[in-house]
């Protein structure tokens, strides 16, 4: 297992390098103009001389390869550069926000996995039963519903109709200190919505996996040996039924990241989302490259995690080391 992790980590280095170069290349080829993005509305009244000066100050007229190499070497030396669009060092931008995004995504992921697995097992126990049919159709509906819309719906119901939960932000809007209690209360809706948006995948995979497993020989054998229904379900069927879901854990990471971007916007969550969108449309090379590295690393780690879990859950699979 350690060898697999080590090898994957080694393999990640060229991948990350290639991805950052691709980001620079795509950004340079994109029709967006970093100077216009930087100037914003002021650019609409700026003189050409003013804009040309900005272009020189920002260094965006230099060749692609030179800019990438400079970024890479200084990033390796620990300097991630300055974000043009947010007017502050990239390390500060990321340091201030990434924790909140991780908290949101991790909570949502946990909600989706736990709830999805639990509902999936219950539904698989009585295929075609009331729970199976109702949760199943709800899952298909959720799969089609955009996270953005779910967020608005949740605000309307929980904040407006019930007045039970805050509609947005990290803390109460009027307060300027951050406390764990406030954050927890403010986390419920965004994490719930994001988790709910991911839930159908886990539910459907677990339900299918477990109900398939229930029909297989080992389970029939276990039943024949008179083991309790609980042991059969959780010890045998769930264990082999979980396998496809473990692969899913890794492959849902990119989806989780994009979902988080939308949910953060709806709930004014001070995570990395707004910065990512701004970095992309403003061709803010330094920020965009750093964020891409983080996202890529998250996806690679997600894949590694799901392979490791697979190996742990099914001794036959082993680690590719």
């Amino acid at each position, binding site marked *: 297992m350690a060898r697999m992790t080590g090898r994957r980590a080694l393999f990640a280095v060229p991948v990350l390098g290639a991805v950052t170069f691709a980001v620079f290349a795509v950004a340079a080829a994109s029709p967006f103009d970093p100077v216009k993005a930087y100037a914003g509305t002021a650019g609409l009244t700026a003189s050409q001389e003013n804009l040309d000066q900005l272009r020189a100050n920002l260094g965006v007229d230099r060749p692609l390869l030179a800019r990438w190499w400079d970024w890479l070497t200084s990033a390796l030396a620990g300097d991630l550069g300055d974000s043009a669009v947010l007017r502050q060092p990239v390390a500060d931008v990321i340091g201030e926000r990434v924790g909140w995004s991780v908290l949101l995504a991790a909570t949502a992921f946990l909600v989706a996995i736990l709830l999805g697995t639990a509902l999936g097992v219950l539904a698989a126990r009585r295929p075609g039963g009331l729970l199976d049919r109702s949760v199943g159709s709800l899952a298909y509906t959720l799969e089609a519903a955009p996270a953005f819309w779910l967020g608005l719906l949740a605000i309307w119901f929980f904040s407006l109709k019930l007045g039970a939960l805050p*509609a*947005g932000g990290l803390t*109460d809007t009027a307060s300027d200190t951050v406390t764990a209690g406030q954050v927890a209360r403010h986390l419920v809706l965004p994490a719930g919505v994001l988790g709910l948006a991911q839930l159908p995948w886990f539910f459907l995979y677990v339900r299918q996996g477990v109900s398939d497993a229930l029909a297989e020989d080992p389970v029939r054998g276990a039943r024949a040996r008179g083991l309790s229904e609980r042991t059969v379900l959780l010890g045998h069927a769930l264990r082999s039924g979980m396998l496809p879901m473990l692969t899913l854990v890794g492959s849902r990471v990119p989806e989780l990241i994009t979902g988080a971007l939308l949910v953060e916007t709806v709930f004014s969550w001070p995570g990395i989302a707004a910065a990512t969108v701004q970095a992309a449309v403003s061709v803010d090379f330094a920020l965009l490259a750093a964020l891409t590295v983080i996202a890529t690393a998250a996806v690679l780690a997600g894949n590694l995690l799901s392979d490791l879990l697979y190996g742990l859950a099914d001794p036959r699979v082993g680690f590719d080391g």
Partner: protein
Amino acid sequence: MTARSIRGTAAAVLAGTLALTAAACSNPGGSAAGSGGRQDSVVVGIAYEPESLSPLLGYGKDGNSKIFDGLLALDADMKLRPALAEALPRVSADGLTYTYRLRKGVTFSDGAPFTARDVVFTYRTVLDPKTNYASRAELDALEDVRAIGDDTVVLTLKYPYAPFAQRTVLGIVPEHIAGRQDVNTGPFTTRPVGTGPYVLAGWSRGEKISFRANPRYWGGEPAVKNFTMAIVKDDDVRATRLRSGDLDGAILPPNLAEGFAGDRTKKTYTARTYDYRTVTLPTHNKVAGDIAIRRALDIAVDRRAMVDSLLQGAGKPAFGPVPTDSEWFAKGTERPHDLAGARKILDEAGWKPGPDGIRVKNGVRAAFPLWYLSGDKLRQDHALAYASDAKKAGIEIRTQSGTWEVIEPRMKDDAVLAGGGAPGDPDFDQYPLLTSTLAGDGFNNMARYDNPVVDKALVDGRRTDDPVRRKAAYDTVQRELVKNPGYTFLTHVDHVYVIDDAWRGLTTQVEPHDHGLASGPWWNVEDWTPKSAEK
């Protein structure tokens, strides 16, 4: 390792990571602040977040910054009044030298005294090409700035520029802080220190900016002690959070503001603006450059209908950059909707209806493309309404959407649905919009308008500070725009705000095109007093 022990380890590591993450996220030392609803705190919802809070990068350049003061400030009627200067500037007879005497006893919120050196530092820094100050063109007239002693500053101009004093509302920054770091990316851009009525309490990007009253403020400590701007980009979410009581006030589109009409605890404020929507008619286009076509379009368009249907009444028909209710508006230049008149102009100019109803002259079809910014619903609505009005007169306008990157290279030949508007002096909008030498300079004079009479009037208007001569100059410009409209001005868009009816002193200023932090009824929140405290 056996699978079982590995499972245990993995679970422990996972749990540990989660706990660490959670711990890293909770801010240390965060004690619970009091709940909302206090009479000395105000929370408003805004749609745009600034990139920086440094005046050296453009924050608060038009006045009303909460953290900074300019030498001068604008009052509710957009009249200049002294701020960090103790009086309006003394202007030399040739209009080239502006002398400001500074207010005494003012300190920055860190306790350091404010002096003439800070003013000199601020202006020299924004003039420095190495500073990424995108609005430098607005200070084009400024040649140099120097201090005489601690309390007098002299600004010298390259040429006489009548509205110059209005540019000195730019916030003044402390040299002893901002001068010691990279002005483009240093910590000052996000943690500013100024002389203004509020100090920054916190800025959680994408969520909110909170301000606390500055006890040292030279104008007296504000009654509203805590002022928070929540950043909520989506209109519907903003309306929802206002309804749930999470926000005390917000900017809203007119149709959402209507939902609060029956709410007795809230009041709706409609701010007059200079925020116009216009269609550029490029001079180099064979069709749009034709004066008969321009004049026909100018009266074929039904501005009233646009105001009523697109803006739900929250706006005014526009006949030029100057709004019809401004003192600078040339009375009698209003053009009523007159479709028959438009057809007559086209007939007389030789634009005859072709087989498909679109007019033709010398083999040229009366057709041209019109671009609008993609994703901007209001501009799209204006563009479609304009095209449909033009069609009735026999002119075919093909609307297309794109980002500025797509539109910009086409601006020379294609029409663009543009917006803009800077309140205050008529020079601010008209000079860059209409001067022929600025044709195609950045986004200035997008239509490449070229009219010698207008050029001369614009120069006259900025070089004299005699109000009568200035009024005459801008009247000339507006009359010329009737004879040769290089743009079809459509509407001036009002900005609508809904806010709790709990304070005294609420007004709105005339607002510019962009929704800066300074706009809204909270432009002077430092002067508000709670109604409940007056019983």
